[in-house]
């Protein structure tokens, strides 16, 4: 059985070496101590609310969250009335009506949060040719996930002298290629938090990352809670299997 241990150890080393350590030119982001990390981790509800606010007041003018419906915001921690109000604040195209025409109506809980641009071409035209990506899955769609998003948002800096910045681009060492079309989106006091939290860049970046982790993995809390139960069950079951095996083999050893 030493051999088994040896193979497993080697396999682990190999898989670590094989993990995606290639942010292609981008600096490796620092590890952040997120509330949702770890075996017992879960989302920080007040941070999610603040992050949602930052998304709506800052990001949503360029970036969509196409997989999120207003009803989902209730799971996130908004009250039903708040979610309904948010839905009713937007106009959704519906139809066709009896005349065969499309019409606009107030949003409902079942509607998705509408994207800022009707299609990719419109988004590019409005953003100097760059496409602001949808953010629903951003924290799962990049190496280092939430750490990367946080580092990117807080990582804008003066370009080093030897780097020539292309027109319309901004310097950010964490971005692949280190030049990003998005200008620095956050500044101190960009939003006003009702819960009294001070809206520093770091605070807002942390909250929006928390929110975007939720949009990418809304079942994380369920998953970790269920996981604990399943693991405990399986540890007991495996223990019982070992006991059964010993009992069965007792008379032949």
């Amino acid at each position, binding site marked *: 059985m030493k051999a088994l241990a040896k193979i497993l150890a080697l396999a682990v080393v190999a898989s670590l070496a094989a993990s995606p350590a290639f942010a292609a030119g981008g600096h490796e982001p620092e590890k952040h101590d997120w509330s949702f990390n770890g075996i017992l981790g879960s989302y920080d509800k007040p941070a999610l609310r603040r992050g949602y606010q930052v998304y709506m007041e800052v990001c949503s003018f360029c970036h969509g969250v196409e997989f999120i*419906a207003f*009803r989902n915001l209730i799971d996130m921690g908004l009250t039903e009335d708040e979610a309904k109000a948010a839905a009713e604040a937007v106009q959704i195209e519906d139809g066709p009506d*009896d005349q065969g025409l499309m019409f606009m109506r107030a949003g*409902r*809980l*079942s509607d998705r949060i509408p994207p800022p641009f009707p299609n990719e071409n419109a988004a590019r035209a409005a953003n100097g040719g760059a496409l602001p990506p949808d953010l629903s899955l951003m924290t799962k769609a990049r190496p280092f996930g939430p750490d990367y998003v946080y580092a990117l948002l807080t990582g804008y800096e003066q370009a080093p002298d030897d780097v020539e910045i292309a027109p319309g681009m901004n310097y950010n060492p964490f971005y692949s290629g280190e030049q990003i079309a998005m200008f620095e989106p956050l500044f101190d006091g960009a939003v006003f938090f009702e819960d009294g939290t001070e809206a520093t860049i770091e605070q807002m970046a942390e909250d929006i990352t928390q929110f975007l982790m939720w949009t990418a993995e809304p079942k994380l809390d369920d998953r970790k809670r269920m996981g604990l139960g399943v693991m405990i*069950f*399986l540890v*007991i*079951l495996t223990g*019982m*299997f070992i*006991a*059964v095996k010993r*009992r069965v083999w007792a008379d032949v050893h």
Partner: protein
Amino acid sequence: MDETDSRRNFLYIATGAFATVGGGLAAWPLIHQMNPAADVLALASTEVDLSPLAPGQSITVKWRGKPVFIRHRTPEEIELAQAADPDDLKDFQPDSERVQNPEWLIMVGVCTHLGCIPLGQKDTDAKGDWNGWFCPCHGSHYDTSGRIRKGPAPENLQIPEYVFLDETTVKIG
């Protein structure tokens, strides 16, 4: 010797029971996934504008994938519905329990027998012996309140939840 045997049996039975419970719990997600998903459950309501409907006219609207019959009843139909003899009704329900406003009958247009769509929405349709709706699949007759009068269907046509948002707008669901 006996004691060892019973201890051994206890261990086997306990392990078997524990594993069976685990297997049962593991089966639940595989079963529950077939129930309506969260996005399906969220698509619950439809609003309908009733203003174009004159008395004696009907429309069919789709709600949760099923047809909903909306009929602007004539005074005669209302009277007929209200005057029904309770003894004639297989599934007794007074008309007043089936409508919020007697002029408007709103019900799910699915026969309670085996799920066909009854006729009677168009003027030219067969309306059955009670001048309401008639299911051509197995010959169930419904009256002007959508109640089963004759045929194999066991229950009256189902009434969905709805509210009148104003005089001529109704929200179903």
